[in-house]
């Protein structure tokens, strides 16, 4: 059976392996365990020859016609899923790519990103919990650390309290006309501002500019909270 790959990119055996594990992980999330269904899915997106390799390497095992992940396989699968979804977030939020670019690019990136880089991306994005399509991103060690130390996380502007000072990290309005306006008004990444109030609308002070905006825009502005000592 010739496999029709969804994204015809050159792939090594290792990449196919990771890809297949990612699919199994996704099937798990959806509650699909049946070997038949999983095999069909793998054949559809990667190739059918990869499955025996997974068994051979001891990454998966079979039980009552169901496919299960070994601890080793579980770890690899969660890792690849995490990198894929982080890549999606990076592409959509920071680089503001259109949606049809995101998936193919994320599929390539997930194999290239090292563990360290994925931690940096995760931190930059403020340890997001969901990918742009709304599925959960498996947690990494950096996320656990961040939960313990509350400071210096990226969060959206609408989650700040009145009186907070923060710096703009990035604005995730994709190609939206308001993006140009916000930038022209001086709300550019790296700019320090103080949040004057949150109700009835958000009001921020950026230098000598006072800006009023609604939650709809505030939640698209990602900011880094400033600790009290830090000066600009």
């Amino acid at each position, binding site marked *: 059976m010739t496999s029709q790959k969804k994204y015809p990119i050159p792939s090594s055996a290792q990449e196919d392996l990771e890809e297949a594990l990612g699919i199994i992980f996704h099937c798990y999330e959806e509650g699909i365990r049946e070997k038949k269904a999983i095999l069909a899915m793998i054949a559809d997106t990667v190739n059918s020859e990869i499955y025996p390799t997974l068994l051979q390497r001891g990454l998966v095992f079979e039980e009552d016609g169901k496919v299960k992940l070994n601890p080793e396989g579980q770890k690899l699968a969660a890792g690849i899923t995490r990198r894929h979804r982080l890549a999606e977030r990076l592409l959509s939020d920071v680089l503001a790519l259109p949606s049809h670019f995101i998936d193919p690019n994320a599929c390539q990136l997930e194999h290239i990103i090292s563990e360290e880089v994925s931690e940096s991306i995760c931190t930059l994005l403020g340890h997001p919990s969901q990918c742009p399509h709304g599925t959960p991103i498996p947690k990494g060690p950096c996320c656990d650390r961040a939960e313990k130390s509350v400071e210096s996380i990226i969060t959206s502007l609408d989650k700040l309290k009145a009186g907070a000072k923060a710096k703009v990290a990035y604005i995730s309005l994709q190609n939206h006309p308001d993006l140009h306006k916000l930038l022209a008004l*001086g709300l550019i990444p790296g700019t320090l501002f103080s949040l004057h109030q949150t109700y009835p609308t958000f*009001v921020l002070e950026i230098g000598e500019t006072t800006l009023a905006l609604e939650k709809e825009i505030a939640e698209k502005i990602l900011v880094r909270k400033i600790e009290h000592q830090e000066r600009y």
Partner: protein
Amino acid sequence: MNIANLSTNAVKTGKIALVGNPNVGKSVIFGFLTGRYVTVSNFPGTTVDVSRGQLWSGGQKCELVDTPGILSLYPRSEDERVTRDLLLREAPDLVIQVTDAKNLKRGLLITMELADLHIPMILVLNMSDEARERGIEIDTNRLASTLGIPVVETVAVTGEGMAELRRLLPLAKAPLASVRYLREVEAAFDRIQTQMPEAWQKNLDSKLYAKSRFVAETLLANDESIWHTLERIFPVIEENSRLKAQTAVHAVLKDFLRPIHILTLNSRQQRAIEISGEITQITGKLKSSWAQKLGAWSMRPWPGYLIMSGILYLMYEFVGVFAAQTLVKILEDGLFGKILNPAVTKIVELLLPVPFLQEMIVGPYGLFTMALTYALALIFPIVSAFFLFFGLMEDSGMLPRLAVMLDRMFRVMGLNGKAVLPMILGLGCDTMATLTTRVLDSKKEKIIVALLLTLSVPCSAQLGAMLGMIAGLSWKVFALWITVVISTMFAVGYGASKFIPGARSPFLMEIPPIRIPQISNILKKVRARLVWYLKEAVPMFLLGTFLLFISDKIGLLGIIKTIANPLVVHFLGLTEKSTEAFIIGFLRRDYGAAGFFVQAQNGFLNPRQVTVALIVITLFMPCIAQFFVTIKERGLKTTLAIAGFVMTFSIAVGGLVNWLLKTDLIQL
């Protein structure tokens, strides 16, 4: 411009454009340089139209053009487009860019963009007193040499620096921006420029060729509206060269992951920050002044809502009680009733022995006794008081804060806080307010506001007459009227927001600082608005009265009354004479209201009829002038739809209220 005809030898400095961010004082400077007054206010986006005036520079007469404020020359809104188009189409010989000295970075961003147009310019750092107060010191000499253009510090409201600005006019130069763009972006511009229509390339030395980079960038920002402007400059743009440019644009855009206009904006912004960093020094920080504190308080729920209610109450006391009752009484009963009308009647009877003409001027439908008395004794004091109060709100910076406070309320109607400007101005004059709907972001919002202005916002003149009718009646009449008007406004606004296609645009607005209003500026503004208003209104009063007089004489009035009888007398439960009020209400709603006012004063209307009359005349069409302005702004089809709806709706609601009151569910 016919300077060329006057003196062919002179160096041409024919046209000067004032350009800059919103609310930085362009209009004040315009006033200083030309001696002509244009509306100046502390609400961003007040100049929605271009104003022109004359200016003498170096013994030459020049035309000075004031433009709407912009954030960037790559327009995101209708008023920004006006400025961009003016710069391209009229190709001014000189640009005066006005910036807020304490917010230089944002001004410099526009300077960087203007540099692509290669027009000689002068940079004005206005409000330099405010900058000094905040300890911001600007090295203007260094700024001038960095940009290669003359720079002048001014305080426009006091006239400081104006003479210097005049002196510098002949020294204007095209600025050096030295922005570093990404290599890929530069390449993209080159690629588009080579695809531009041939006509532009042949004119290598023409102003337009120099601007083709600007055109390329505009096209890459996906702003196709520039073609329309270019066609005006070059009547023939061959369809295929246009297609060629468009194809190139699409090809280039595919190569970029981020929008190009954001990349160029970033590069310019970096340069602007660099320059402002080099030339500004912040010496010491000032503690926040009482004005800043007041500005901050008035946007918070507490005590913001209290402050806003206080302001509305003051407005009611000043306009509704002092002007509409005290002043009107003095003028109407005193000046006109006891002195002028009897005197004029005497004179007319002496000079014009023809009874027909006498009646036309001083009869019950007399041009003097009805129309002018009404215009001068009733309208004049009320409208002046309103504009005075509105001017104070505008110039102090309270109006944008009201926009913040009311944003949530306007959301229900598919609008956002920005709609405060037209809606409150509508309480002064609906026609003027319809013109300012241009400050709104989307077509949908403009239509909704035009509809609500037509339906629910009575103008100050009308409010005055109506408050007079209510005076002396039970509070329930007032409560019922205001409940019906406000609840129908929300209901219709909500319905329209669902019915009219398009998305609501989220609220995003710059809030200017609180300033102590300049009384002289407010007085000038009140005067300008009053003149405008009276020019609109008085001819309509005269025309309406004349039509009424004629129809009465030829018996048409009686016929109309008979036809309208079932509607006015049976359905609405009003008196037969009320038809007259509706007829003139077609011309001007406030005049219609005045008709009811007279009836009420003479005791012809019972409380139920007063209530119904109030509601119907509030919801009725505002006036002929507003109707025409709506056509101009929104098109005939939309306007007719609005008019049809408003007429049916106002009468239906009136009928319903009449029926409700007749059932005695509510005792007035």
